[in-house]
């Protein structure tokens, strides 16, 4: 896993914001190809970690990326950056899939239904501030806490995995999880 606070990654995220906007403005297929190359493998990784079989993961990756094309006009970088936006699309499609035995339902709110019009420089500032805040908060966590946060996010059975990977007794895991997430949340609040 690469460092989640890598400044290069943050800069790239800003380019990806631009790519999504180009799709909305000019149906830019080259921008779509860049987004696909970067994000499709990550969506596969995310879905596989949460237990999706290969054929389901493949279907949902394609649906996610086509949603990026379709919904590009509703992308609002002042609310969520490219990674977060695409991540929430994949997450919602996975949940819809799990609930599909009656009907697919867009039960979870779209991360950006109605973008507000804000000047580009202002958006760039908001985006940069958000990235900085996130980076500072993640850096302030201990290595163990950062690993706990990662496992809570991307494991179906986080407590037993945390216990196994970090060699902590199960009884200790719950309080460590509470401490790590509480600290992260406080850091994000304080940096607002």
């Amino acid at each position, binding site marked *: 896993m690469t460092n989640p606070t890598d400044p290069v990654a943050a800069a790239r995220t800003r380019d990806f914001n631009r790519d999504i906007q180009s799709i909305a403005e000019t149906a830019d297929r080259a921008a779509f190809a860049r987004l696909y190359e970067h994000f*499709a493998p990550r969506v596969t*990784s995310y879905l596989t970690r*949460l237990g999706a079989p290969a054929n389901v993961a493949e279907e949902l*990756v394609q649906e996610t990326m086509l949603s990026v094309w379709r919904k590009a006009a509703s992308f609002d970088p002042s609310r969520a950056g490219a990674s977060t936006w695409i991540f929430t699309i994949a997450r919602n499609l996975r949940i819809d899939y799990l609930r599909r035995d009656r009907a697919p339902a867009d039960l979870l709110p779209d991360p950006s239904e109605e973008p507000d019009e804000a000047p580009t420089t202002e958006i760039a500032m908001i985006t940069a501030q958000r990235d900085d805040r996130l980076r500072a908060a993640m850096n302030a966590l201990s290595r163990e806490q950062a690993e706990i*946060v990662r496992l809570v996010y991307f494991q179906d059975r986080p407590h037993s995995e945390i216990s196994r990977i970090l060699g902590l007794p199960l009884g200790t895991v719950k309080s460590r999880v509470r401490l790590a*997430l509480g600290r992260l949340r406080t850091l994000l609040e304080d940096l607002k």
Partner: protein
Amino acid sequence: MSSMHHPHDETLARHAAGSLGPAASLVVESHLAHCSTCRAAMTDFEAVGGALFECLPPGAAPADGLARALAAIERGSPQPATPPSPRGKATRPALPTGVALPASLDNCDFGQWRWMAPGIRVSSAKAPWAKAEGLKLLRIEPGKKLLRHGHHGAEWTCILSGSFSDERARFVKGDFAEVDEDVDHQPVVDGDEECICLIAQEGRMRPHGLVGRLYQMVFDA
């Protein structure tokens, strides 16, 4: 409007990550509709999810995936594989005047009220994914007590109307009550209004005594 009792950070983080069960997520959604504090926390937890997602070791993208996606785009406005169904058509039990189920349940079928104990009725969700997490509505008359019980895993409750109290606190409309295997409790409906709750469970309830076990048979039916 903000509530007094919220999901644990871990529950919000797992909801943001998509790793909470599909039924438990509906209970969290019902709380979020009432709670601006937790909606703000969700925005933060989603941003954390986006950063962690960005750093996942890339998996293998589908073979020819980009070419197929571009072909779908060329064919015209690519539609979702399965279009969303009309909202609000789900079957649900009769509700007291003035009580509405949250929008998060618009596509979730529930059965009719079944008697569970004097003054206590239950309506279970019908879909297999919802049954797997024991998603149900409980409707309890004022003054009624649930049997004292423990839990085999986490249990998530959102209060849709009325209120109840247990040894820990008082919970009102919009509040979120979260218990795990360490908690034994005996909720009592304390207002003059019926209490309606939405509940999902990770493990089954662990009632105490023979009556409790009989009651369990009804609860799980």
